[in-house]
């Protein structure tokens, strides 16, 4: 959209501090955006994303720090008019109280270029037409802005911003009120502009998955500070997100683009597929907190990873798997039924898994495979799995491994706890007792499991 000769602009934020009254909302944030980049600002509510945009566009005066547009200080060296001829902003909400037509609205984008008493020139009208063509809003020209649906309206607001002939386009959650297909429409449009003419795009996004899909680089803000920056894969790690959002997430890969995709995890909903499994959700939550506090959480640069085989199933161990994987341990899992939430988690984490068909008993072959996996591990961890006749054979394999000198630990492996999930007529309890006698330890939860796993790693 940028007319030839309109060079995309770079933006530099230098130690920017902004307050609302006494409340600091941005604290010494510095970041650099090169001309032609497509970058996203992400972070929780009140992390300072929108404030950063406001300070950068001269709506909110910073307490200290500088905002440089192509090296020029926007607060000290540029007039509002000069700003408006280089930078366009797409706000989160666009007022529709007054009955402007779509064309009149887009035409307002020319305000910084149009002389007060001269009115719009043919070149301005041509520019408006071009902006409307590229946003496919030409057909809406004579509609009132208030009559439009959300997606249409946002395209019009974008057309207005493009009519402003920007060298830098800033967008504040432009897709937050749109449904899925319109979100993709708007972002595809922006990506086209960015790739086509190199327009610099800075977008505040709530949706981390959209941010990962579209942005070259991300800046993660938390509590008014820059928490992380870099490629989506570098920024959207479970550890970063946990630290900033304070909630547990899983990070998988987009099946087509391979960019990170974030999945939320409930604090309340039991992770089990069966309702009668003991409060796995609570356990996961505790573990998550433990993982976030553990040094080096996130798995990068972990000094002592262990190879651990995890006996999971019945949705009992999803949290366990995630913590261990996040801490950098190399896992194998199984046997689990396909479709089980432990199975989903293992797949999300990219862990090698011994799988049996949904709702069927564990067969000999699966037990053998699991035993082989245990054999090539440093240690075996048994999750708080409910055992029935279908899967109790796995415990026998674990016992063999223990007797062969393999380190074994059981999560919630106390006699009463095991009895409560023993649906194999006492067989699971008996095997557990034998395991403990053979030197297996019992762990009370996921944070203990993490500590145990770390010891296993050190032993290697």
């Amino acid at each position, binding site marked *: 959209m940028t007319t030839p000769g309109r060079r995309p602009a770079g933006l530099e934020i230098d130690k920017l501090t902004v307050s609302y009254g006494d409340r600091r909302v941005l604290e010494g944030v510095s970041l650099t955006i090169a001309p032609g980049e497509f970058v996203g600002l992400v972070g929780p509510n009140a992390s300072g994303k929108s404030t950063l945009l*406001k300070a950068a*566009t*001269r*709506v909110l005066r910073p307490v200290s720090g500088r905002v440089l547009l192509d090296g020029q200080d926007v607060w000290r060296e540029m*007039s*509002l*008019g000069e*700003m*408006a*001829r280089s*930078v*366009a*902003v797409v*706000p989160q909400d*666009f*007022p529709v*109280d*007054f*009955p*402007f*037509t779509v*064309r*009149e609205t887009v035409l*307002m*984008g020319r*305000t*910084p270029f*149009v002389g*007060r*008493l001269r*009115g719009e020139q043919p070149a301005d009208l041509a520019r408006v037409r071009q902006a409307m063509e590229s946003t496919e809003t030409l057909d809406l*020209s*004579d*509609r*009132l802005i*208030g*009559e439009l649906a959300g997606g249409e309206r946002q395209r019009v607001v974008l057309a207005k911003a493009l009519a*402003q002939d920007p060298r830098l386009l800033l967008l504040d959650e432009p897709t937050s009120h749109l449904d899925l297909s319109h979100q993709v429409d708007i972002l595809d449009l922006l990506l086209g502009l960015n790739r086509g003419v190199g327009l610099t795009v800075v977008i505040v996004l709530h949706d981390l998955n959209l941010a990962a899909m579209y942005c070259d680089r991300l800046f993660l803000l938390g509590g008014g500070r820059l928490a992380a920056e870099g490629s989506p894969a570098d920024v959207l790690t479970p550890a970063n997100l946990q630290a900033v959002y304070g909630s547990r997430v899983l990070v998988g890969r987009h099946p087509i683009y391979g960019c990170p995709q974030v999945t939320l995890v409930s604090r309340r909903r039991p992770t089990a597929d069966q309702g009668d499994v003991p409060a796995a959700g609570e356990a996961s939550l505790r573990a998550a907190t433990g993982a976030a506090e553990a040094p080096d959480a996130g798995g990068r640069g972990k000094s002592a990873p262990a190879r651990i085989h995890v006996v999971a199933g019945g949705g009992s161990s999803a949290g366990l798997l995630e913590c261990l994987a996040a801490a950098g341990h190399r896992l194998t899992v199984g046997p689990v039924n396909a479709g089980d939430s432990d199975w989903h988690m293992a797949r999300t984490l990219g862990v090698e898994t011994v799988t049996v068909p949904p709702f069927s008993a564990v067969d000999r072959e699966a037990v053998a495979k699991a035993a082989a996996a245990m054999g090539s591990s440093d240690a075996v961890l048994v999750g708080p799995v409910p055992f029935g006749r279908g899967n109790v054979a796995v415990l026998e394999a674990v016992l063999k491994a223990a007797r062969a000198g393999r380190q074994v630990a059981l999560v919630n492996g106390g006699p009463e706890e095991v009895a409560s999930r023993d649906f194999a007529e006492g067989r699971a309890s008996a095997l557990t007792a034998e395991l403990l006698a053979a030197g297996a330890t019992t762990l009370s939860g996921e944070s203990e499991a993490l500590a145990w796993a770390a010891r296993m790693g050190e032993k290697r």
Partner: protein
Amino acid sequence: MAGESGTQRRAGRASTRRAGRGVALGLLGAALATGGLVAVAVGSVPLPVGEVARILAHALPWVGAGVRPDWSASHEAIVLAIRLPRVLLAAVVGAALGVAGGAFQGLFRNPMADPYVIGVSSGAALGASLAIAFRPAIGLAGLGAVPVAAFAGAILTVLAVYSIARVGREVPVGNLLLSGIALGSLLSALVSVVIIYSRTSLDQIVFWLMGSLAGRGWTHLGVAVPYLVVGSAVLLYLARDLNALLLGEEEAAHLGVAVDRTKKIILAAASLLTAAAVATCGIVGFVGLVVPHIVRLVAGPDHRTLLPVSALGGALLLVVADLLARTAVRPAELPVGVVTALIGAPFFLYLLRRSRRGGGIL
């Protein structure tokens, strides 16, 4: 079927609007000239419109030399000294109220705003009623105590509202609106007190409160016109900025408008405009509220069209209303504010009903 007519209506909207400005200005200009001529001709002594036209033409420089006077001196005096200044004042004040109303509605992004929204009228009312009740021996520029006191009251009130609403260097419009309403109520209560304690002046005060052009002449016109012309010119000059402000103050800043400074200039210009109008004619209601509304329905919300068309529309409405005010119940005179409400309100309600299906009043 319904969709089709909807599309046609929409397709019509842009062309109507594009043509709207020129056509509206032309039609309203012609209507205003005709209405003015008729207003000068009609009165206790009816005069032929042709004669009025010739008297007016004769009074003009250059053109006037070509017109041979064939009318009585008394007719000339009625036209030039009595009726013409009153009609002109009606036109100028009507225009001012139309422009100020449009500007305040835009600035406040609120269609219920009118020229009196930040307390101009109540301040002027208190000033005027005190002047009427106590008859102080003040005067300025040939004007009596009432307009001078009304003007002073209006300006002082606006300044008070402004300083109450101000937060640091900014003036949030919500604050202005609320402090305007609150201070307005206080001053209106004081006006009531003045009325109660000065029964003798009751009629006069009430008449002033409802707005009147009775007895206004060239002196009033001469004093008010500079304010009205300069204020209107400033607001017309800022029409583009008012458009941007309609999108919100942040959005306006993104379009390069220096929001705080522009707001202050618009406030000052619109307040002076209104104060001058109120000081000379009392509180003429409805023009400033309804005219910009009607114009917006026809020509859209673009202030570059809205303000000039509202000026002509306001002028026309007040000229016609004043004509009715002084002729409808002869020999008595109605307050012109009563007439503007009587004409304006039903017309407005009619438009409101009609436009509801077409996408809202605004």
